[in-house]
């Protein structure tokens, strides 16, 4: 009887005290973190996400299929080296005389010479692919735990600490742009190299593209290269019938590309 009373007394004191202590600790930690932040951001102007809205332009006729973009993306973003995990990749389209369309992912490995009799080929070209950073993203709609969302500057990103790896978003993406990261077992995707764009740099794939087939820019700035790109070219997006409103704009896109 006495022991139980002692225990209850102890518990009454212990639990609220623990809660208050935890709250205090969090307060202190919270105060420290923003202070560090302000120091780092002192030199350049602080970055305001709401002032920007990013997109990408891709000019098909300029792509030479060198695959540097996919290689640079893997280096910048710690995408696994195995040749079937991609945040961005390049496809070769070959349209044959009999109407057959052959699509090959050339980022998968060493390039084959030619695949078909040149006389049977009507046209052939490369199409770089990546997450389309949709303004109406199906992957965000299906996430059961709110782990993926659109940032104010227009990048769709994943919180790997909250993602439960259920793969709904991988199924929902009509562009096949997501994959399950084998180390974290969470969904991973192109973020437009978010760590670079907040510092005013270009995404790694745009940085290394040797023919400027990829253009990156801010849709809210009238002087950006992307806005000029959209003005100077006839623009198409992938799968417009799905109303995903992609922010990756293709110029000279062939009707066979999907």
């Amino acid at each position, binding site marked *: 009887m006495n022991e139980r009373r002692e225990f209850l007394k102890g518990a009454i004191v212990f*639990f609220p005290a623990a809660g208050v202590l935890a709250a205090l600790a969090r307060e202190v930690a919270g105060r420290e973190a923003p202070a560090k932040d302000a120091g780092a951001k002192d030199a350049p102007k602080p970055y305001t996400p709401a002032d920007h809205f990013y997109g990408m332009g891709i000019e098909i006729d300029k792509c030479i299929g060198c695959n540097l973009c996919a290689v640079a993306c893997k280096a910048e973003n710690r995408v696994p080296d195995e040749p079937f995990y991609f945040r961005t990749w390049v496809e070769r389209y070959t349209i044959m005389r009999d109407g057959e369309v052959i699509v090959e992912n050339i980022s998968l490995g060493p390039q084959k010479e030619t695949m078909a009799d040149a006389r049977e080929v009507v046209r052939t070209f490369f199409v770089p692919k990546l997450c389309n950073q949709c303004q109406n993203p199906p992957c965000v709609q299906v996430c059961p735990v709110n782990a993926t969302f659109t940032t104010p500057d227009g990048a769709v990103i994943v919180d790997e600490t909250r993602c439960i790896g259920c793969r709904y978003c991988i199924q929902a993406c009509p562009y096949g742009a997501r994959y399950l990261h084998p180390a974290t077992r969470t969904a991973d995707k192109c973020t437009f190299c978010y760590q670079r764009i907040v510092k005013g740099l270009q995404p790694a794939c745009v940085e290394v593209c040797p023919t400027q087939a990829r253009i990156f820019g801010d849709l809210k700035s009238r002087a950006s290269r992307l806005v000029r790109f959209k003005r100077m070219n006839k623009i198409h997006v992938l799968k417009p019938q799905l109303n995903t409103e992609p922010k990756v704009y293709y110029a000279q896109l062939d009707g066979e590309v999907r």
Partner: protein
Amino acid sequence: MRIPEQVHRLAIVLAIVIGGTLLTRFVIIPRSLVSTELHWAQTTQREATRPLKFAGSTACQDCHEDVAAKKAKSFHRVLACEGCHTPSIKHAEDPSAAKPTVLRERKLCATCHAYDPSRPTGFPQINVTAHNPLKACVTCHNPHDPVPPKVPKECAACHAQIERAKAVSSHALLTCTTCHKAPERHKTAPRTALPSKPDSRDFCGACHGQGAAGAPKEAPKVDLSTHGARNLCWECHYPHLPEGRS
């Protein structure tokens, strides 16, 4: 009236349960797990502070002015340094800490310049097995100002796609100069000085017209006066691969 002891005890237990629930909900569970805005802001912050690998196109110019000035006037002017020299933000931050490397093998240049039928027409491409095999590209070409060491003799040096199509066609034995007159300047300024194309139907008619004198027997013949009179021949027939499928 005396409150029974059981009610006292029950009240204490109830108070603990309610207090515990409130404590858990408002203090112990982190706010970022409850507030979507806070959670998204934290995720955005985490993404924004990930480490970089590429220093960016402007970082190299500050120290390597001479190379940058040379490259800025060359055909490679839009290439990023780190495309060939590997991502080098560590070198940009502390030049002695890490050195960028460069692959001096042929396969680095072949990434872009090996012949591939899907590449856009006019992009400089070579046949890697036939073009000075076993010799490193840098022995003849300076990658920061890549001009051919001598003006190409063959049209196929640039027009490999056309050359390959023609090689399997019945026009395989015709030389490019049979139909095209290229000004000498075309070799140095390919887009401003364009080669000529046949500008009359009689040009093709010399072999393919009915009753053409000295025409090869196997060349198919048409009546020039009735066959597609309003167009030049190459507006409908592709002369580099006239038969399409046999």
